[in-house]
């Protein structure tokens, strides 16, 4: 009885054949809906920061350097590859790639940094609609010119809170 069961087991094992995958030599293709490392496309990004708001592990950080530059930083340390950022992106700038071979000896290797140009209105210097236009126009020290470098720099609100108010801006009408 015992011998028969052994023979049966042997037959089962022979039927299965060799199952070990030759992984480091050749990789098995990943499933189609596999979510790997998110790839950020800087040319499509509009800087709405929807991904930063929706990230459950708070891994996408947003800094406003000045009114025209926004830095979006994906750190990737505790990213769970849930794909919410890719779902919420209105411009489909984030794609979940099939990359999974991300092993590294330095955790900083996983980060991606985007420097986004937030184009502003040349007249009023705003990126988005504000609740009240008049309220916005009353703000002092909103803009300053850097004549040496031949450019305009718009100040973000983050710097305005603690600074003494400068002279009122003058808007020239045609």
């Amino acid at each position, binding site marked *: 009885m015992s011998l028969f069961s052994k023979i049966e087991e042997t037959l089962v094992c022979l039927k299965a054949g060799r199952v070990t995958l030759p992984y480091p030599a050749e990789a098995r293709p990943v499933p189609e809906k596999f979510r790997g490392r998110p790839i950020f496309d*800087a040319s499509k990004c509009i800087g709405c920061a929807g991904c930063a708001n929706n990230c459950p592990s708070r891994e996408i950080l947003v800094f406003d350097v000045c009114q025209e530059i926004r830095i979006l930083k994906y750190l990737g340390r505790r990213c769970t590859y849930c794909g919410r950022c890719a779902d919420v992106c209105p411009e489909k700038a984030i794609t979940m790639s099939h990359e*999974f071979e991300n092993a590294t*000896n330095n*955790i900083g290797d996983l980060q991606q940094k985007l*420097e986004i140009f937030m184009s502003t209105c040349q007249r009023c210097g705003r990126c988005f609609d504000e609740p009240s236009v008049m309220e916005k126009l009353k703000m002092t020290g909103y803009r300053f010119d850097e004549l040496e470098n*031949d*450019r305009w720099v718009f100040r973000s609100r983050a710097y305005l809170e603690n600074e003494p108010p400068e002279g009122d801006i003058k808007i020239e009408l045609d």
Partner: protein
Amino acid sequence: MLKNLCQKMFGRSLWVYHANSGGCNGCDIEVLNVLTPYYDVERFGIKLVGSPRHADVMLCQGPAMRATATALRRAYEAMPSPKLVFAIGSCACGGGIWHDSYSVLGPVEKVVPVNYYIPGCPPRPEAIIYGVAVALGIVDKKTAPVEFKQAEFPIPRYHPDELHREKDMIVYERQEKV
């Protein structure tokens, strides 16, 4: 240098000990999946051992929790001296999605020094084998920090002086993209 040292020290069989300090068991299952006949890592001499005193490599899963931090530290100190620590999964690498919870201290590197990180939630068995291969110096790591820029400063200014009338229309001479 670390790679050469690793190749010298860990040139033969690696004995791994897996320490879960409060993870959800997902990464444990992937580590055990690595040891099954499908991803048979015993062909590389990697073997799972039950005690940290027998181990060369510690596989950490789960974040450093308030309750298990001392136990993890003691397990690390019990390992004989040429030792490597792998942080497997996003909890061990960066604290996981409950990184701001009261019982979570943060990533494992707050308690024990980590040599290699394998991110993923959970990482695929292939990713774990790849991490071990990176540590042994068989393959090179593929990741590198990425930086994109949409515009270069200084941005040219709009010059009203450059406007001039030409027949019926007003022409702006400087054709620079702002």
